[in-house]
């Protein structure tokens, strides 16, 4: 699908996300980062495909890369149902605001984050806005959207993808993260 915002009226500006053409680049970026963070929202509980949900891949990615996870809204319930405990539960706006602080870390006394992965952060426009907030006010961060639709305010994003292809990409990323 096209390399353009999913919602027609969304026009981002001159700086747009680099498109993730090869999902393998995501594990490479994560492994290069000093202190990645993974934010997973309720959008990860939608778009079932072949009995799987995006949250299932989020767990594999987080476990594989040993990445701390912040679950927003009630996503935490589904994580725990799958036997995974996120590092923290915060509202999307809270975690967005907190990440503009270059000293902040989700782990007590931990090093500040330098890379944020995002998956399913509410409706499309909420992730758009939080991505934009971080682009403008968290220059210390790089951001990767793992959503099915293009999020141009992130540093890297998939283009708009058919659901099957999106799941294939998530699988490849999970496998890449699980490789030792």
């Amino acid at each position, binding site marked *: 699908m096209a390399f353009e915002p999913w919602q027609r009226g969304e026009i981002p500006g001159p700086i747009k996300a680099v498109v993730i053409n090869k999902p393998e680049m995501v594990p490479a970026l994560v492994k290069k980062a000093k202190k990645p963070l993974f934010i997973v929202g309720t959008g990860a509980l939608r778009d079932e495909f072949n009995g799987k949900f995006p949250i299932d891949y989020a767990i594999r990615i987080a476990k594989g890369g040993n990445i701390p996870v912040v679950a927003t809204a*009630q996503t935490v319930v589904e994580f725990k149902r799958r036997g995974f405990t996120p590092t923290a539960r915060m509202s999307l706006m809270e975690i967005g605001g907190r990440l503009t602080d270059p000293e902040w870390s989700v782990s007590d006394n931990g090093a500040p984050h330098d890379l944020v992965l995002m998956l399913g952060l509410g409706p499309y426009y909420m992730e758009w806005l939080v991505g934009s907030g971080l682009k403008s006010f968290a220059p210390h961060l790089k951001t990767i959207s793992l959503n099915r639709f293009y999020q141009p305010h992130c540093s890297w994003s998939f283009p708009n993808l058919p659901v099957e292809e999106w799941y294939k990409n998530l699988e490849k990323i999970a496998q890449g993260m699980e490789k030792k």
Partner: protein
Amino acid sequence: MSKTRIKFDELVTDLVKAKGLEFSVGRIIKEWEEEPGPTPMPDIGTFREWDHKLLTKYKPFYLPWCDLCCLCTFGKCDLSKGKRGACGLDMKAQLSRFVLLSCSIGAATHCGHARHMVEELIAKFGRDHPLDVGGENVYLEAPNIRLVTGIKPRTLADLEDVLDYCETEIVHLLSSCHTGQEGDNIDFESKVFHAGMIDHVSMEVADIAQISTYGFPKADPDAPLIEVGMGCIDKSKPVILVIGHNVPPAVEIADYMRNHGLEDSIEVCGICCTAIDLTRYSQKAKIVGPISFQLRFVRSGFADVIVVDEQCIRTDIVVEAQKVHAPLISTHYKNFQGLQDRTGDSVDDIVRDLVEGRVPGVAILDSEKAGEVAVRVATAIAPKRKKFKIVPEESAVIEEAKKCRKCYACVRVCPNTLPIPEALEEASKGNLQPLSELYESCVGCGRCEQEGICPAQIHPHTLIVGASKRRIAEEKHKMRAGRGAIQDVEIRRVGQPIVMGEIPGVVAFVGCANYPGTWKEVPIMASEFTKRRYIVCTTGCAAMSIGMYKDENGQSPYEAYPGAFEAGGLINCGSCVSNPHISGAAIKIASIFAKRKLRSNYEEIADYIHNRVGAVGVAWGAYSQKASSIASGFWRLGIPVIVGPHGSKYRRMLLGRKDDKEAWYVIDARTGKSAYAGPVPEHLFIAAETMEEAMVLIPKLCMRASDTTKGRAIKLNHYIDLHRRFFGELPDDVHLFVRTIADIPVTMKDEVMALLKEKGWEENENPNPDPTLLPRLVRAKSEG
């Protein structure tokens, strides 16, 4: 205080001979018993220090929609990654300017509405018409006006002085947005708060004027139940639909019908706040639904005449009305809609032209004339129109659905990304259920039907309505008419338990119908907190949505819960301009219960409310600039507001940092010493991702520094209980809200104690300070 105006029809003296001479003499202060406070008629800089205190606790988190500023001809300017525009503004300042623009538009809209209304009511009822919003039950009739301006309004004419002040402030606020003015984002934010404060004053003017003149319910907890929902509309009769916010033309319609014995032979119904205010005037009027119902109702063809006034009207209403052959009458100069102004023509001529279809509509800027024209046209045209509609029958919906190519163009323009293609696929097989289910989550914008969107020329919104006919026929609900103000005696009863925390909070569900999902989320939330013995207030479209819901007993929440301002009450104050009765209730608690001086004493009252009155606003479907200014009026009083996901598009949150202990100290007014109060309330403005998240935020944001241990335990009980229900676990921040062991809810003691131990919690040495952010109140107290 008022302006004195003197008018001579004819004046002949030794010096002067004049006709139609009118002049006014400055302001004459009519004193009243309360001494003037420190800040009468504050300007945009007066409360800068107070605002900065709040903005130090609640820092803006900006969410740029795009990287650009395109407000002047220097631009477009790219403000991304720390760049400044050609004028010098950076992204934070630009976004705060945008919020100020939005709030200034909102405040100007309410103020303009109030001015128009007051002028019309003075012309009809006279300048000396007394203000009365609740007789003996409401001595404190205008809390916002008294608090901000220092004026105690007694007559309609007094309201003009208030509006003079508001208009001046709005001009200054708007001018601050000009290129080359303010450059600091926090100072812009302070002005945002000012716009909100002015907005509440303006709205209060509008509502107390209409309550006092039109005989609306006067602070009546037992205001009548009225009908709401498309299924309530009797389409066997001629139907007049009113849309907007300015009720006088609709009142004239009702009056004309009554005076001509037509009340039972014509149906008058409304959408948006004019509908709410009309049902405060006439219980025979009906409410179709909130703002999102405009397209679906107009296209259903029920309405034989459509009368619009101002605000929240679809700006393509002429086009839509023409599609169903319904004449349109515009009654307001803010909203000519391209129609010819026929105010000066005879009623007979206008009626003839509309009934014969010579013109699509007319503008009539005389409410009385518009009322007569509307009724006569409806009567004459109804037999000709035969309820002409463009909503298809179910069989036609199925045929249309077969044309869908699943290109998702409709989804990509839908604000709620509704699964339209999947629903159409089912419809094409004869199953209309999925399409009908979209009815509840469709905000009625019609973007899916715009020219050039669907390559197969399908009209999804219309098909959704066509598939929902049975659902629409069952849309018959009850809603309590807007009661207006809160009685002083009600405040006396609940003031103490609110301030002590024993009534866990006042929750206000307000605002528009741009919901992120089904509108039922609003009544679900309202019912939950009413059951939990919060005081639940509501206004506007949210009040309608609450009414359009039936519980397991088939009752609407208004039937299930009392309309009194008490624990477990559900209080519909009225339309948008009734919101100041909610902020006014908080102000009254400080004034009536706590006996704080009210008159032009804003800062002290706001400080009291922020630290003691556990109130929170929820604007789940906020879409408008007015909604932003209403919210900002609450912010300056230190009252938090939660919005739904679409509210993130206001592009700025005001978030506290609970992990920053230094941010949460207050001054103990008893000693003057600093005291840690915990992160209460934690945020001032936040968008929730889901209803469940909002329902956990509400009890949390109702906590206040003044809570007694019993009150804090009650509030924590609700917070923990809802957190566990929706998030499946104990909140990991409970330790921040437990000041002393006695704060812990008894039934949760073991698990909370375990968490406190894990967190290394220590008891607060001063768990119950007399909290203030204003050092001057310490001195005042010791002197007193």
